[in-house]
């Protein structure tokens, strides 16, 4: 199969760079103005006292958008061979993309590290810079155009777009919703109904974990009033489960349960998938960035998905890339390998299994909007079209 990441024509790249430079300049002046004003106010207060041939075309008009098929190991990640002669011309200047990953550098971002280290982004005509930010900050920064592409929870994208933050979800990273409830297998908890009356640890009553817990309990006819919530804002709920302080806890399928099992306690994991459709973390982009850097973002998505395929086929390459990017991870190579394995597993849900990594389940988003509306998290009506776009996926419409 021939990959077809289209490098952008050189003159357009220059336009983008100029535009980007002007935009940064404007941003600087705005922030300078804000800074000056803030200083003034403080003093005042003081004185006052790459596209790819689609693997499948079915579903584009409805529920599922096909994504890239698994790349052939033989395929090149450099300027790809395409059927478009014009696209053989490399850009004079690469397009700069700032990409926001999660808060802490982690093995979970192995595909990004791998693609960067192997020069696949560069070969696609991109200069990619990574930043680590927490989810809410990242959404605002992407919406404001300070960051071009970021990773965000689908459950955050819905309220954000509802509040008119101009972002769109452009590729699924986690086909399975990664937030889960986990417990020791010895606890006897096997289903959501078993949670009734139990102590459940959670970092807080907010975010995707809290939404998942409400949905999971709701599937058994329970609410959070039917369990005893114990908050662990410092994310130590795994230790609380291990020590028996709580019966179960919320966490991520590729983190806490894995660590629990590495510590010698077999874990029971309750997933929300198949009960309530909730969109997992994926790539988001600002509407302005999509306008000005459409092809570059499409190329970024294509390369990233292909790197995910590569890591899926060869986890060791992903682990090595993560350790090269974050040397501290080397001190726990076995643990990191287990986390990466669990991460790779969670990339593929039913939709991704059928259409490839990155595919977006539009019907799932419709259900999610409906569910989150019942939780009061969608103050202004939103539609899937406003939340999600599929044309940046390889083979997307």
């Amino acid at each position, binding site marked *: 199969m021939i990959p077809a990441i289209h490098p952008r024509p050189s003159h357009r790249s220059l336009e983008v760079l100029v535009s980007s430079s002007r935009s940064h300049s404007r941003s600087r002046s*705005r922030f300078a*103005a*804000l800074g000056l*004003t803030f200083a*003034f*106010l403080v003093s*005042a207060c003081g004185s*006052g*006292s790459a596209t790819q041939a689609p693997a499948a075309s079915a579903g584009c008009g409805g529920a599922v958008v096909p994504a890239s098929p698994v790349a052939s190991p033989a395929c090149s990640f450099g300027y790809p061979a395409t059927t478009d002669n014009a696209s053989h011309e490399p850009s004079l200047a690469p397009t700069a993309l700032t990409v926001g990953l999660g808060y802490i550098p982690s093995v979970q971002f192995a595909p990004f590290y791998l693609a960067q280290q192997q020069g696949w982004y560069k070969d696609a005509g991109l200069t990619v810079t990574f930043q680590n930010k*927490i*989810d*809410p900050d990242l*959404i*605002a920064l992407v*919406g*404001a155009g300070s960051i071009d592409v970021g990773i965000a929870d689908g459950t*955050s994208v819905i*309220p*954000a777009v*509802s*509040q*008119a*933050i*101009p972002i769109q979800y452009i590729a699924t990273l986690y086909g399975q919703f990664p937030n889960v409830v986990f417990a020791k297998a010895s606890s006897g908890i096997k289903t959501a109904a078993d949670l009734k009356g139990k102590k459940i640890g959670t970092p*807080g*009553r*907010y*975010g995707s974990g809290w939404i998942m817990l409400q949905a999971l309990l709701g599937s058994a006819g329970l609410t959070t009033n039917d369990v005893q919530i114990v*908050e*662990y*804002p*410092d994310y*130590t709920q795994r230790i609380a489960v291990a020590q028996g302080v709580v019966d179960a806890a919320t966490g991520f399928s590729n983190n806490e349960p894995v660590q629990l099992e590495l510590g010698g306690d077999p874990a029971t994991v309750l997933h929300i998938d198949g009960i309530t459709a909730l969109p997992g973390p994926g790539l988001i982009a600002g509407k302005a960035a999509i306008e000005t850097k459409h092809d570059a973002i499409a190329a970024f998505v294509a390369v990233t998905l292909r790197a995910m395929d590569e890591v899926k086929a060869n986890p060791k390459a992903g682990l090595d890339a993560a350790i090269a990017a974050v040397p501290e991870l080397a001190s726990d190579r076995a643990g990191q390998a287990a986390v990466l394995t669990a991460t790779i597993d969670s990339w593929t849900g039913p939709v991704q299994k059928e259409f490839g990594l990155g595919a977006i389940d539009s019907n799932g988003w419709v259900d999610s909007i409906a569910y989150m509306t019942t939780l009061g*998290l969608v*103050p202004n009506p939103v539609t899937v079209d406003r939340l999600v776009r599929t044309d940046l996926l390889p083979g997307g419409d």
Partner: protein
Amino acid sequence: MTQDRLVTRSSVLTVIGALVVFLLIWRAIVFIGGYPPFILPTPEAVFGRFLKAIGDGTIWPHFITTLQEVAFGFAVGAGAGVAIGYLLARSALVERLASPYLVAAQAVPILAIAPLLALWFGPGLLGKVVICSLIVFFPVAISTMVGIRSVDPRLLELGRSLRATRRQVLTTLEVPAALPSILGGMRVGVTLAVVGAVVGEWAGADRGLGVLINLARGSLFDIPLMFAALLTLALMGIVLYLAVVLVERRLVGVR
């Protein structure tokens, strides 16, 4: 009209004028910068959201929770600060023993240790009171120490020559002389208590204005609501500060 009334009216007009200028500059920044509400909402959007949040009861439970934390935290922190500050002023041994630890504790960012304090004292009121107390303690202790040391030694000598008891010296000489300084420390402390409550809530809570800020910013993406919560905190800080100023005026007069 008396001179006092003229001064009061002038002060009020100055405050209102400063507020109007502040709001105009804020509005101008939004207008000129073309900022969308999720970056910087307009003052009228914030005020409208503030009124709505008060009207529909969104803010009240959070406000009450934070106010309780601030009140208890300030009381404990200021009380301990006055007591330790006095000992620091009057005992060289206590000063030598405690000063390094006090300064070191002050140098450690409360934000860094707040999660640990929440772990030790739990996610309830106690944890927040401890965090507030710690943040209030230092300025009150230092201002008390400075105030007590500023008592004229000749007055103390006079007291001793008149065979005044320790208690009499404390109540008639030291406290009155140190009161302006102590209350100055409390002015700083009471505003820091508001900061401490929010830091404590960020370390783990299900209610409080700090929680509302996080919910508005991180879960609801309702930035006008976040600003409304910040406005509530600011108003709380201003009112508490003015309360200390009123106490100060009553006890030591206008300075």
